[in-house]
């Protein structure tokens, strides 16, 4: 009894300190970049925005950033640029300058000397200005929306096998900078999922000694409990309209997929199997992909949000799970011959590519444009984050100086 009281007191205390942001910068290590991408040269921009843009473009696996030493005589921004003179080195040249706290960025094609100028307004997070510039450049050249000005949520764990273990839920920029802890708990925190407006996170927390799904505003910290039914309350996933949360509940026996209305709490049941049904992901406004072992091993299935018959999506390998969907691409965990890797495929066709090469890779999450996948892998015995381009040509690791970093969740496009 006394123990329970102490426990409750310390929980309250934990929740109190959890509102204080604990900073733990992740260390970025670039494993590989594309050497046959679109060649682009980034001139120096006062204040260093070019370095942030370079990191972004490299991460996409679609660009090869030309070494600074290859071109030393680029005229300063404002002076005339005869871009054609560099067409044998780069397809594009980027110049720019800080302007009113924001950035003015010029993109020039070396094939026709065509110029596009972007004005990015100031932001309280200075790095976001550079990410937004990178998004403009990316979209102009690839004709696909850029997703560098986005965020990651992830979970860290320190002292995981001792009684001092501590779980924290973080939000950072998509490149791992500016991390901020929004929750800490001595009991597991898992499965963060972004609302479509990128302002709220749903997650699973065992902080009250049973599993429960919460929704928390990442700016105000305001938090509410969505489901704390008997048994499992797991794997929350927001509907594209932001009004519903798909989840896995075992309140009626084996874990099944349910949909809860976020506004009025109304619950509808989607699956009714006696097997494990979990890890739902929305594949449209009214359909879900989820993991089920109803066929004897975990595989991906698709079902209408209103229930009914299922369509099996994966047949290759003994373990396919944890689907994430963006821009009609499906990323998932594929287990084969004892190794677990991240696979990607089109939502509507069956051929898949393997994107990772670790032994125990998991928790894939696509950038909103589907061009990059963040996932969890092992480095030196600890969980660490990796980001790989969908063509597998670029890979980066985001490693914590202490403990494990895992379960990345890539935000939708930011609205704030």
């Amino acid at each position, binding site marked *: 009894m006394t123990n329970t009281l102490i426990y409750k007191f310390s929980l309250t205390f934990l929740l109190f300190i959890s509102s204080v942001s604990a900073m733990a910068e992740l260390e970025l290590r670039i494993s590989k970049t594309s050497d046959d991408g679109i060649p682009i040269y980034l001139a120096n921009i006062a204040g260093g925005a070019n370095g942030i843009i370079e990191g972004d473009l490299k991460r996409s696996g679609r660009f090869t950033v030309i070494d600074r030493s290859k071109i030393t005589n680029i005229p300063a921004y404002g002076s005339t640029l005869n871009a054609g003179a560099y067409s044998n080195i780069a397809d594009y040249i980027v110049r720019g300058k800080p302007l009113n706290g924001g950035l003015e960025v010029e993109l020039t094609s070396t094939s026709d000397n065509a110029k596009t100028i972007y004005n990015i307004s100031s932001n309280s997070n200075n790095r976001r200005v550079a990410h937004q510039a990178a998004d403009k450049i990316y979209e102009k050249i690839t004709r696909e929306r850029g997703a560098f000005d986005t965020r990651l949520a992830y979970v860290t764990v320190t002292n995981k096998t001792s009684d001092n273990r501590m779980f924290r839920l973080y939000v950072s920029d998509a490149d791992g900078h500016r991390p901020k802890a929004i929750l800490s708990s001595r009991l*597991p925190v898992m499965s963060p999922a972004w609302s479509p407006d990128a302002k709220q996170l749903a997650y699973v927390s*065992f902080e009250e000694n049973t*599993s429960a799904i919460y929704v928390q505003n990442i700016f105000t910290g305001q938090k509410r409990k969505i489901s704390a039914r008997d048994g*499992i309350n*797991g794997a929350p996933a927001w509907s594209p309209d932001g009004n519903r949360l798909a989840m896995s509940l075992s309140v009626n026996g084996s874990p099944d997929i349910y949909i809860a209305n976020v506004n009025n709490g109304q619950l509808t049941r989607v699956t009714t199997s006696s097997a494990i049904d979990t890890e739902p992901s929305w594949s449209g406004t009214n359909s879900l992909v989820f993991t089920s*072992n109803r066929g004897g091993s975990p595989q991906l299935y698709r079902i209408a949000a209103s229930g009914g018959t299922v369509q099996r999506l994966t047949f290759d390998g003994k373990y396919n799970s944890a689907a994430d969907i963006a821009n009609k691409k499906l990323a998932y965990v594929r*287990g084969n011959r004892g190794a677990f890797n991240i696979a990607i495929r089109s939502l509507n066709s069956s051929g898949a590519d393997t994107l990772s090469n670790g032994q125990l890779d998991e928790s894939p999450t696509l950038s909103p444009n589907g061009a990059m996948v963040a996932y969890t892998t092992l480095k030196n015995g600890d969980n660490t984050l990796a980001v790989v381009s969908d063509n597998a040509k670029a890979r980066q690791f985001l490693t914590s100086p202490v403990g494990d970093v895992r379960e990345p969740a890539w935000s939708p496009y930011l609205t704030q």
Partner: protein
Amino acid sequence: MKTTTIRSALTIMLSTLLLTACSSQNIKDTAGSDNDSNKPIISSNSGTTNGTLGSDGTSKVITSEQDGTNFNYLPGANNDPNNTQDISLAGLSDSSNLLSQRVIYFDYDKAAIRPEYMVLINTHAKLLAKYPNLKMRLEGHADERGSREYNVALSEARSQSVKNIMVAQGPSDNQIRTIGFGEEIPIVRGHNTKSWQKNRRVEIKYDDY
């Protein structure tokens, strides 16, 4: 540990299993293996013998000596049914009593109870039946392989398997709560077969003991 002791203990365990099988559907899969060719491994060599699945899906036999630890995949010496005569609250804190053993281990991606744990589970069930106010929590865990929410479901299924067998022995349903922690709270850190088998478990926790 004498070979004969193991043999007689196994005989009793297996007959308990057969009796209980009639009242529980959760143990129909007691071979507990992914691999059709992998029969339950029961050995009378010296030392405890553990049936495990290697990361490549092949079956392996690891003895506790090779394991280099005191980890008993089989309950071990305390599994002698003579130690279970004293089914009382005092037995919970008596290290020679089977009631002091509170961990049940599982095969990879399985929630089926291995036959060697039936005596242990039934002994705890009898204690609950004897003390109707006594409450227990079964905390299920998984190893790190596979996806995290699937592992939460798997670990809850493990604690549910234990609960179903216990309830068949007489305690009331509301004396036993279950929870699945997935792979979130490992006992050991390693990323290998030895560590994985220690992390795939259900821990029996009594509310006030």
